[in-house]
């Protein structure tokens, strides 16, 4: 399928590109890319066995989605992007790379009744800006980008987005309390920033390979 064939979703003042990569009856899978990346143009090899429809979202400032003026990115606002996609697709399993994995973990808690499992995979932006601030150096000011995407403000602001472990755990606890799945989060990443290690210490998450986690969630849903 062509990368240009996408649906446009409205999230506030942003137009988001949602790419349908596979159209099949059955459970839905939503791919969330890493920081600075964009949706794959075609179905990635590691999800070809998924038994239902597959979608991929371009976050704000990435891919074919709006690049807003003046920055102001937070992981929470981009969780709203993923939630807009979830509203369109209906309940879905989330597979996030890097930053998209962090968003998947948050949304698994915030929309525990609609997320049918979240996979957190290695990719850009997984660690963010760490668990706590260092000596702050003032606000982010970036040079104009040579290209329209990815938005340099997204790269600068989301790469220093703070992720305290207890904050991430809040979402894991919500996921455990609100999901029908016994273990709603699968940690497939080998990189283990503190927030992800904290998740692994909860009953909401366990380490898994991508194929195993996809099989587990799709079997449970069918």
């Amino acid at each position, binding site marked *: 399928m062509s990368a240009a064939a996408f649906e446009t979703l*409205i*999230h*506030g*003042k*942003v137009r988001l590109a949602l790419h349908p990569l596979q159209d099949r009856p059955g459970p839905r899978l939503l791919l969330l890319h890493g920081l600075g990346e964009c949706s794959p143009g075609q179905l990635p090899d590691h999800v070809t066995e998924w038994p239902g429809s597959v979608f991929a979202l371009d976050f*704000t400032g990435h891919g074919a989605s*709006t690049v*807003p*003026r*003046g*920055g*102001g*990115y*937070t*992981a*929470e*606002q981009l*969780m*709203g992007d993923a*939630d*807009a996609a979830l*509203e369109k697709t209906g309940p879905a399993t989330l597979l996030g790379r890097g930053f998209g994995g962090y968003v998947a973990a948050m949304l698994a*808690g*915030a*929309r*525990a009744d609609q997320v049918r499992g979240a996979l957190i995979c290695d990719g850009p932006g997984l660690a963010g800006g760490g668990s*706590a*601030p260092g000596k*702050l*150096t*003032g*606000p*982010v*000011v970036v040079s104009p980008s040579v290209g329209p995407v990815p938005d340099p*403000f997204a790269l600068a*602001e989301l790469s220093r*987005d*703070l*992720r*305290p472990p207890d*904050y991430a755990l*809040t*979402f894991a*606890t*919500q996921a455990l*309390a*609100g999901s029908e799945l016994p273990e709603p989060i699968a940690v497939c990443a080998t990189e283990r920033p503190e927030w992800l290690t904290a998740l692994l210490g909860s009953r909401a998450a366990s380490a898994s390979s991508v194929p195993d986690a996809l099989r587990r969630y799709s079997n449970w849903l069918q």
Partner: protein
Amino acid sequence: MTDPETQNAAAVADDVRPGYPGARAADRRRSVDSFGIEIAVYEWGDPDAPVLMLAHGGFDFARTYDVFAPMLADGGWRVVAWDQRGHGDSEHAALYSWDSDGRDALAVLDSTIAAPVVAVGHSKGASVMMDLVHGLPERFSRFVNIDGMPSSRPQPDVSDHERTRMAAQSTAAWLDHRRALASKTRRPGSFDDLAKRRGRMNPRLSIEWLRYLVSVGARHDPDGWRWKLDPSMRFGGFGPWRPEWSLRRMPEFPRPMLALLGQIPEEMGSALQPDAVRPLLPPGAQLEAFADTGHFIHIEKPREVADLVLRFLK
């Protein structure tokens, strides 16, 4: 961007335009481009006087300083205030964050002067300016915090299970709000409706002041009056920031500080007690508490606050 004077002149009929004792519109008005976002800037006082940057609080706008700013200007300062993005006459942005508010403030500062300036902020505006002073101390000489000191609010005394449920509800409500953003507008009402609504958030402010705020902070649409504030903004929310991070940095604050505390709790102010704040202050900082005053100290007691600030800056 519509000039607010023109806009309000057209919107507020002469027979309902309220006055307010001491209120004075800015002497100059300009706009600043902050990485594509147009920021409305207001100045009071002699353009050659030393610069004092005045940052408003969340859900406020620069002209809430129409009484306080002229007092500082008359005390010998070039007072520069601005509407934060999404507030007042500044542009509504797609994204809002602490970082972007700091960046917009820096754009206003850069457009004003390169030499160090005094920073004064109220509530959230004080917190944003504190971060800016921390990050760029060479750009600032002194700092005044009007009821915006960091604090560690106690968690509600509920079970873990209940706390999880409350947090989940809060997060889901925030996402529901985001899902409905595209069609959101601020609720219209009559001129006095808006004043009364604002009064529910600011119960100690006089109706005359609230009506004045409507005349400078709202617009008249065919279906009624609306605050200019971006309808995507809402109270509450959540995020990773921990108050203890701000508290931990306080003792190393790099510039002389005057901190003012209102002592009557309100919806928008937590009435921090001086004994809780004093141990955290940087060496030499001055702390003043207003026993019979709420969060909007500079509006309830403009003359007293202006005099305190002017003495601190001498």
